[in-house]
């Protein structure tokens, strides 16, 4: 008997008490809330990101390029990694040197490590937990590019932000590789106090793009 057959046989024997006609389909009891309504969505997201020691700026849509240029200048970043399809207007006029990474033509980890940072968009953001989710879309790129550089500048549009975790989960496609990011890399392993900055980017800067009014 293979290990698989043996394990499944043991599982079935262990479950002898379960009625044979107990349905496999279970109607989930989603009695819980979609979110815990603690304030205007963008305000909550900003508050939670700051709580995690991320840098946060809010900007109207027509000023994203200027804000990116300003952030990179503050950081002193000259050579930044970008995914294959960042909106053109985000970088227009910044004069920044970009290193484009794609699945077809990936940069090496050494090149990523030597860069001054990375700029991406995101798939979804969850206000209540201060979480930004990347799904490898064309404005986000391979998982490695938001991991190896020490600085991540992430642009989040207001229409990508939901209030609670359930709403976020339902918008995501599990077939894509997902990275949920809640603040910069951190650890609680020393006396259970949180310290920011371990292996992932030690600085996370977020541009919240407000909807045009």
């Amino acid at each position: 008997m293979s290990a698989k057959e043996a394990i499944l046989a043991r599982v079935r024997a262990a479950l002898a008490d379960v009625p044979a006609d107990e349905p496999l389909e279970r109607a989930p009891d989603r009695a819980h809330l979609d979110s815990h309504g603690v304030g205007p969505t963008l305000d909550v997201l900003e508050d939670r990101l700051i709580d995690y020691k991320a840098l946060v700026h809010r900007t109207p849509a027509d000023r994203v390029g200027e804000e990116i240029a300003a952030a990179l200048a503050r950081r002193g970043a000259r050579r930044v990694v970008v995914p294959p399809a960042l909106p053109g207007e985000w970088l227009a006029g910044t004069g920044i040197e970009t290193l484009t990474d794609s699945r077809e033509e990936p940069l090496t980890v050494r090149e990523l490590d030597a860069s001054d940072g990375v700029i991406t968009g995101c798939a979804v953001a969850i206000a209540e937990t201060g979480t930004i989710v990347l799904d490898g879309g064309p404005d986000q790129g391979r998982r490695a590019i938001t991991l190896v550089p020490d600085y991540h500048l992430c642009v989040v549009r207001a229409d990508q932000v939901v209030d609670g975790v359930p709403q976020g989960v339902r918008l995501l496609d599990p077939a894509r590789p997902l990275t949920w990011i809640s603040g910069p890399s951190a650890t609680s392993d020393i006396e259970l106090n949180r310290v920011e900055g371990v292996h992932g980017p030690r600085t996370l800067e977020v541009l919240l793009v407000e909807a045009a009014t």
Partner: protein
Amino acid sequence: MSDATFLGMPPFPEAARTAVKDSRLRYNLRKATHTIRDKRAHVVDEMGDDWARLRTEGAAVKTHTLRHLDRYLEQLEASVSRAGGHVHWASDAAEANRIVTALVKATGETDVVKVKSMATQEIELNNALAAEGITAYETDLAELIVQLGNDLPSHILVPAIHLGRAQIREIFLEQMAEWGTPAPPGLTDDPRALAEAARAHLRERFLRTRTAISGANFAVADSGTLVVLESEGNGRMCLTLPQTLISVVGIEKIVPTWDDLEVFMQLLPRSSTGERMNPYTSTWTGVTPGDGPQEFHLVLLDNGRTDVLADTVGRQALRCIRCSACLNTCPVYERTGGHSYGSVYPGPIGAILTPQLRGMGSEVEESLPYASSLCGACYEVCPVAIDIPEVLVHLREEVAEGHGHLGEKTLMAGAEAVFSSSTALGAVQRAAGLGRTLVPRHLPGLAGAWTDTRDVPDVPAESFRRWWNEREREEGR
């Protein structure tokens, strides 16, 4: 190199007696468990009544999954395979270690990086790999501290919880050079400096190593997705940069659907690190061409889990999502620390999981159901509502029925008139004084020596816990 093992550890009372005399250990544990307890309480309270609903649903999803585990395991295998992953089945630790060793050897690598994983600790994978000339580098900060110190993990979430910053600094200064990049000579015990030293120590390792080993917090049957929650980014490094990824996952880690994560991604971070969300969560489904590992192996591990499943009372222990809230709140754990439990699963959950996974084969397992005052705090904080006291009492019955735990046997003999059967004993233990404590004149196990020279006080009419809760309720009116 590390060869630490839990094999041959003394039973709980003996180990605990040594541990409670260690004042530095008591100080470290008290500080850490109280910090995390307060943080958890804060982020759970802000969920209001919804926490109870999430907890109920979390328990229900896990219970349902366990009752149909065969079907979900087959579904998971199909989903992972369809997405380009390879699925292996391991009946026990030896088989899992053989599979992983062979997979690593097939890559031609002799170094692997590891994400913190309870399953691989349980099967002592690192020792098995070392025996075959493969070095496993732990990358989680606390696991790194334990590995460098040739120590054993003492907590599910923070394996080095028993160590304070000054001890960690010493370990880094003395051991890092032997394993790779040395610690900076002027290293202080500031947690920031220690985290920075870990970053520098592991950086090159991450960029260079081509094979990684992980566990998983969840495996989603319908989509074939694996989920790892972490904080530092070491998980992302291991799950993203290498060519080959091998994940060792207990068969109880399954949830049926992707949407079930909306429940668990709320329950787990708040219960474990006391954060609204942990810094990083990675999910992957098989292989994504051009992004991340191009070869993925999932090793499904039984290693005693089907024995736990066969016990209709003890089965609920398999709902555990390894948050460690029960450890952090437990008055016994706070005083004895994790090593006393003689297993990678310490604390209240360990006291019910270890004897069930391993069987009541030795004094270590037989003593564990007694490593509790049955105060019930663990049940209250459990995000999937495992009634740990119920299982503890159930296991005590088993010990008493079997060849027996010495203390309990003495008790049984002396109290035959009252406790004519183990069932009655169980009922009394649950109900004594309307609380949950049975206090015989001579305590079994840990407290036995104490009662050699003293009588135990009478059982109060109600337990402190119950009195306190009633009092709070009345004041709230």
